[in-house]
């Protein structure tokens, strides 16, 4: 039963074929036996939650996620439970309130089973920067599961849960989904509330689902979406109909192909899959349309200015004064700040804080931050213009299969991993990664589609079609 998706499991529970408490127990056993380090903590009350939902189900309760165990990333708060964002700074931190996304899961009857490992404060591409331990890719434990939501994606493919939540600031849902062979969605910025989610880069962060199939993903996003009075940046008057086009054909669909992406893909491991996807789309009635996104060339530098700038400010509250860990050797106020931050932040986080403060500092602000914001504005316009001639845009999610643990020791190499994913965050667009065959090492390769703002339903249409028909293609 562990391999079942959300909807399948919910229906079996509803039909009385299995109780929530039984499947929860199975997952807990599996987590305990797992050697991939996907999970930081199984919540002590998971069984209790399941029992309560079982009771409610017996009385006729029908939540969209009734009885379904879901794992959340370690940066999502649930009142009374630990949430550490993969950092020693929050090692002993217990959330004082529940995030909107977790509340929405609970409101639909989900069991919040465990918290998944992640790169510290979501900064990383391989879950190698967790302060606790590295997570291994369940499909090849010498390789990373991707990051920063590596624990979440690994847990889904390893069947440690029915589905998981991740967060995506520059690809942190999509890239691990690609590496683990699961479906990952980064919704339109403003689709999902960020309230109660430890912030990395506030203007880019979005919570999204990581699932075993497309239909589950659409369902979970339906649960998560909506205006939140606690988050001004959530969009008003949202239309939430993500499943409405699932099952429709690709006939007449216009798929944008960015010429500069074609060039970037050349010679990468992902090239043949990318080309096969184009063929597949055309064979199934879609039309390929050339589009130009000139500022895509500058998106990585823009991202590595905006994200660290916001992060430097967001992470300043971790100062050793209040609810965080505090250095034992600190005597003065200044030492509380400097020693605590020296001791409890990892190197990658420190690197980005320094970078962020540098680009914001007086004399450099215009040269870096403002320039990056102007790149962002132009990129956004270019995408909006491109979408006048196409419904979705195709790109790879990552350069290829999951890389070896320790394989991106140079931070710049790791940053370049994000080349295909960051533009959706910078432009605020929705983007989905779906498994599309395996590469040379028999590990999954993901393909990514981007859509106009709030057009997630088109992404689910394409993704579910590909999911259903990809077996037709040789080598996929």
């Amino acid at each position: 039963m562990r391999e079942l998706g959300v909807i399948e499991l919910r229906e079996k529970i509803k039909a009385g074929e299995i109780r929530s408490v039984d499947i929860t127990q199975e997952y807990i056993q599996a987590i305990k036996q797992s050697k991939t380090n996907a999970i930081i903590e199984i919540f002590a009350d998971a069984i209790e939650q399941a029992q309560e939902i079982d009771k409610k189900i017996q009385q006729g309760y029908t939540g969209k996620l009734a009885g379904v165990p879901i794992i959340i990333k370690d940066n999502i708060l649930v009142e009374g439970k630990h949430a550490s964002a993969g950092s020693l700074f929050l090692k002993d931190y217990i959330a004082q309130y529940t995030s909107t996304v977790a509340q929405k899961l609970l409101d639909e009857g989900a069991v919040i089973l465990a918290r998944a490992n992640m790169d510290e404060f979501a900064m990383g591409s391989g879950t190698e920067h967790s302060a606790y331990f590295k997570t291994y890719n369940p499909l090849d434990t010498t390789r990373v599961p991707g990051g920063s939501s590596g624990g979440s994606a690994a847990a889904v493919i390893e069947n440690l849960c029915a589905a998981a939540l991740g967060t995506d600031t520059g690809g942190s849902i999509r890239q691990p989904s690609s590496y683990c062979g699961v479906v990952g969605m980064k919704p339109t910025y403003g689709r999902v509330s960020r309230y109660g989610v430890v912030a990395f880069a506030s203007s880019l962060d979005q919570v999204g689902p990581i699932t075993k199939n497309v239909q589950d993903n659409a369902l979970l996003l339906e649960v998560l979406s909506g205006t939140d009075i606690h988050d001004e940046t959530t969009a008003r008057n949202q239309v939430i109909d993500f499943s409405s086009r699932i099952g429709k054909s690709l006939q007449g669909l216009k798929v944008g192909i960015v010429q500069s992406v074609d060039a970037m893909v050349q010679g990468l491991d992902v090239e043949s899959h990318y080309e096969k996807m184009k063929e597949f789309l055309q064979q199934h009635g879609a039309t390929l349309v050339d589009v130009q996104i000139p500022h895509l060339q500058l998106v990585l530098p823009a991202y590595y200015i905006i994200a660290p700038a916001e992060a430097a400010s967001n992470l300043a509250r971790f100062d050793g004064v209040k609810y965080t860990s505090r250095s034992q050797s600190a005597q003065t106020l200044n030492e509380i700040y400097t020693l605590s931050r020296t001791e409890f932040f990892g190197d990658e986080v420190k690197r980005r804080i320094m970078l962020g403060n540098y680009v914001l500092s007086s004399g450099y602000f215009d040269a870096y931050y403002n320039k990056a914001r102007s790149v962002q504005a132009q990129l956004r316009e270019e995408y909006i213009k491109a979408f006048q001639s196409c419904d979705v845009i195709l790109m790879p999610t990552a350069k290829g299969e999951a890389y070896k643990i320790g394989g991106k020791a140079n931070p710049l190499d790791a940053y370049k991993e994000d080349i295909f994913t960051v533009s959706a965050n910078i432009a605020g667009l929705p983007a989905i990664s779906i498994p599309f065959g395996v590469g040379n090492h028999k590990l999954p390769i993901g393909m990514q589609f981007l859509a106009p703002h709030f057009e997630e339903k088109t992404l689910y249409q394409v993704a579910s079609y590909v999911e259903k028909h990809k077996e037709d293609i040789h080598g996929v």
Partner: protein
Amino acid sequence: MEYDVVIGLEVHAELKTQSKCFCSCANSFGQEPNTTCCPVCVGLPGALPVLNKKAVEQTIRAGVALGFEINKTAIFERKNYFYPDLAKAYQISQLVKPICINGHLRVGEKDIPINRIHLEEDAGKLVHGTDGKTLIDYNRAGVPLIELVTDALKEPHIETANEAVEFLEKLRQIYIYAGISDCMQERGQMRADVNISLKPKGSKQFGTKVEMKNIMGFRSVKRAIEYEIARQKEILEDGGVIEQETRKWDNEKGINFTLRTKENAQDYRYFPDPDLLAVQISEEEVEQIKKSIPILPSQYKHTYMQEYALSEYEADVLLQFKHVNDFFNACVAIYPNPKSLCNWILTDILTKIKTESGAGPILISAQDFVWLVQNVDNKKINKINAKEDVLEEIWGTSKSAEEVAKKKNIMIDINDQALDGIIQEVLKVHIAVVEQFKTENDPKILNFLVGQVMKTTRGKANASVVMEKIKKFTQK
């Protein structure tokens, strides 16, 4: 050498609102420490600010009352610095696009230019214990604060300590009258930073400015400015150079000392707060607020002097405390004799309510007060009786003036004939004095006789009537 003094002011005032600036916690003073806070105020991970529209409204109100332009789009920015009372390690403030720009305030014959009023959040408060420990109270964190900054680069300048204090007093009155802030300085609801520079008389080139932060109380502002002007003059006259720095005013010692030099100036790394949307302000909204602005002190003053024929001094004293002015207006509405009411209020009411730091409440109703003033004006009660027997008796109680006056039998209700009889009796008793008066015509003697009659009538006669009668009787 003669110098021109240029004084700049930055004035913080806490806004009067139900809730705080970015959350729904109560904006109230004097609560138990850390009881009016939530995840937003204490900067918990994942907490997000949500703008209180009322705070924006109040800021616009301040702008409108001072003749500012209101920006159609205003943005919030983060001012980043570490301090334990600043939970997020950044203050949400405004730099590039504040709500109000380009206003002015009339001081004497000068229209002092004001650069801006922006909205920001207050910080918490450190409480230093005697045991060497410091505690933090976050109740004040997030209280809406407006900062007004004069434009010292434009003429006319504030040039003297007295002008600065007049500016502050006028500003305070406007804030109070328009319901923008209570401006209670003892509660820190109004705080001023002052910067001062000196230049050779007539020079176009500004001198180096020195800033003094958070001076509490206008009297201290005056002393601090006078001290700093003298200090700078002395340095310049000795051929020295003024250092650009921030100095702290020590009110007890009456001196200031260096707090921070230019080299140690903080770089606040301002950038737009990604958690908050830009504020859009429509012309309709500004018009609405304009209409809702109550009568301001300058308008009252005009009415009092032009229509009520009060002196400037009288008008200023009436306007000094809003509740006194409100009381005056309530009384004028019932009894349109402003001159008489003003006399009473300035002498009898103010002496009762004035305290060292301001004025206490008026503990008599306008109706009762008017009844008294009117009856004295109509010669139905003697002023001394009205004051001592009625005003004192009913002050702070729910007793009615009329009932007390009647119960004490002090109404002037002796008829003319009876009064003549009493006067004749008194003159008989004091026959020797009467003879003396007849020869000397000494007003002191007359007063004595009037006093004797009043005593006999127990104040129920009108003294001036009695005086006329005595004169008449003694002439015979």
